[in-house]
């Protein structure tokens, strides 16, 4: 039927016309009508201004590095304003940890920045150990294994940065190379921890289990292959004219910008400042390893790419030194009130507590059983107070701030994730550039949304 002669009233019943929702009476009853209008008549376009075009890129977009949402105001192909929207992967890890024991927290933190699980675990465990005052009692072998695992993890994280960054810029061979080489590292992780990712391997007081019998040799054998393949990947891109065309002088951020925005990691080092917590505030015995802090002065995406390439080489150096340092010994602190009672082992039915330990608690010592039960269900207590530990993750300073109320659970845990802070630089890096450049800029920050949103 025609509505030409029907008077529209809004839902509230007043006579004032409503642009969005009106109603009219028919013989069948009142009909409510929800309709859109022309945006110009609703918002009223400002005089003498061009239309603003705001493009929403993501959170589901193949080149935004995960569920990152970019809100871009564009003028043709030029980005005039860029804002990043985050929170799409918030999982409440920090809140959840307040309801689990200190040791169980490791299982949570490893899932934050899922490309750097070892770093998350080390930062958290170092913080707990500092709060407990047992930093000096961590066995040498455990620290060496931690360093080795972290540096292997740095390689795998940088490889993913390269692979996804390459994919986003159309360099698909780089992606294939990056993910292929990462498998080599993940194979080592699987051999040592039982899991390729999220391994919950590093525990307060040491590590969950010692290297397998042939583990050391397998890692040693992997290094030459990794070194050769890393060189192949580098050769593919370092002098590649197309790659350079997409990355040189793109995503510029100088030292002053980095300082103001709190940027750390490869982005900071691409401004020429050799800031690396492994050197300036060593932990896990990093002062005993020889390696160089790689810096570039170009402040651009290409510089950050080169830094990552060369840092992987330095990490291999550290892994080699760590292998040489490995001496037989315990991998868990001696203090029985903190140390996890059992070492893990792999049996015919999968991974579990070692048979010797099961035999002891089930058939030999009642006290050992009680002790096991108390430590596993209730957990150890951490004295009331707060500590902060910062370590150099592949993305920058990963900080762990823990507050204890003297209980068996954290009172509050906060992670200062480097990706979270570094993502704030998107606007500074990309406003005024092309849309295609913002992809390169984001890829050079290498944010992982699991860490950003936690």
């Amino acid at each position, binding site marked *: 039927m025609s509505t030409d002669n029907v008077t529209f009233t809004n839902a509230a019943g007043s006579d004032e016309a409503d642009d969005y929702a009106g109603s009219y009476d028919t013989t069948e009853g009142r009909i409510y009508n929800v309709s859109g209008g022309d945006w110009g008549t609703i918002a009223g376009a400002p005089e003498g201004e061009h239309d603003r075009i705001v493009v929403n890129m993501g959170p589901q977009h193949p080149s935004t590095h995960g569920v990152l949402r970019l809100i871009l105001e564009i003028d043709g192909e030029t980005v005039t304003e860029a804002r990043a929207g985050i929170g799409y992967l918030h999982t409440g890890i920090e809140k959840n940890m*307040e309801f689990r024991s200190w040791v169980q927290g490791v299982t949570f933190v490893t899932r934050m920045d899922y490309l750097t699980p070892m770093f998350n675990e080390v930062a958290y465990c170092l913080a707990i150990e500092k709060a407990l005052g047992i930093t000096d009692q961590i066995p040498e072998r455990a620290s060496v294994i931690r360093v080795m695992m972290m540096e292997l993890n740095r390689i795998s994280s940088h490889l993913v940065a390269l692979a996804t960054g390459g994919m986003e810029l159309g360099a698909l061979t780089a992606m294939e190379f990056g993910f292929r080489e990462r498998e080599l590292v993940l194979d080592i992780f699987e051999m040592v921890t039982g899991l390729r990712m999220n391994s919950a391997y590093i525990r307060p007081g040491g590590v969950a289990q010692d290297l397998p019998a042939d583990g050391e040799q397998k890692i040693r054998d992997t290094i030459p292959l990794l070194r050769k393949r890393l060189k192949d990947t580098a050769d593919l891109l370092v002098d590649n004219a197309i790659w350079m065309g997409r990355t040189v002088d793109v995503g510029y951020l100088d030292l002053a910008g980095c300082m103001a925005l*709190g940027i750390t990691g490869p982005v900071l080092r691409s401004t020429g400042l050799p800031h690396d917590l492994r050197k300036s505030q060593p932990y896990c015995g990093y002062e005993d390893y020889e390696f160089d802090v790689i810096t570039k002065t170009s402040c651009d995406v290409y510089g950050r790419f080169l830094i990552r390439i060369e840092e992987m080489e330095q990490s291999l150096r550290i892994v080699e030194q760590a292998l040489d340092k490995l001496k037989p010994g315990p991998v868990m602190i001696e203090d029985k009130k903190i140390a996890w009672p059992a070492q893990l082992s792999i049996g015919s039915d999968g991974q579990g507590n070692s048979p010797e330990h099961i035999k002891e608690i089930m058939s030999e010592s009642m006290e050992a059983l009680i002790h096991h039960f108390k430590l596993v269900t*209730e957990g150890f207590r951490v004295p009331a107070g707060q500590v902060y530990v910062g370590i150099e993750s592949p993305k920058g300073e990963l900080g762990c701030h823990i507050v204890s109320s003297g209980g068996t659970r954290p009172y509050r845990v906060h992670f200062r994730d480097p990706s979270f802070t570094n993502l704030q630089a998107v606007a500074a890096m990309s406003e005024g550039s092309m849309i295609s450049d913002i992809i390169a800029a984001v890829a050079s920050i290498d944010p992982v949304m699991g860490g950003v949103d936690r």
Partner: protein
Amino acid sequence: MTDAHHPAVPQGVEELDIIGVRHGAFGAADGGDTSGFGGLVDPIVMPAPATRPFGGWFDEVSDELELALQAGGLPATEAIEKVVIYKDEITYHVRREHLLAFVTMLRDEPGLRFEMCLGVSGVHYPGETGRELHAVYHFLSITHNRRVRVEVSVADGDAVIPSIVAVYPTCDWHERETWDFFGIVFDGHPALTRIMMPDDWPGHPQRKDYPLGGIPVEFKGGTIPPADQRRSYN
């Protein structure tokens, strides 16, 4: 006088920072305590304030701070509530009205040079009446290779802290996150909106009075309640 409710106060310290009281042997809040120690009362005391000399570079930084504050016409005791040193980390508890002046000094004074702020996060102490919400800032000086922590405490009903985004732009997202999770309003922030939770989310999830939520884990023939409803020992 010293008893369980009023632990001994060290010399030179006016007041202890008690954030709560733990009852019983295992801190179990639900069900009966069959251990025989159900009558235990144990106050939870945070580390006590430190007195001079602090030791190491802590004195140097504190001297610099006091001089700089005095040069700005502000007595140090006015701006700094107390100083806590715990596990080789120094914490300045700063009154909120002087926070902006304080952090500007941290950044600008040549003897301090804390170029980098590592962000702010909150901690909720519902047991500390009148100062339930704490905002905790971490600073790093790359020049001097030092770290300090700054803590600002406010009451739950008046949770407003001046924003330091103008001094340390990196705190933009960190302050938004702290607002989102704790409900602390950072006065002067350019756009204090939620960052993690949806814009229309009710409540501030990381406060202690906000439940964890969750659904029971179901097995064949049995269920396990969600984590915050399980029997716990804390």
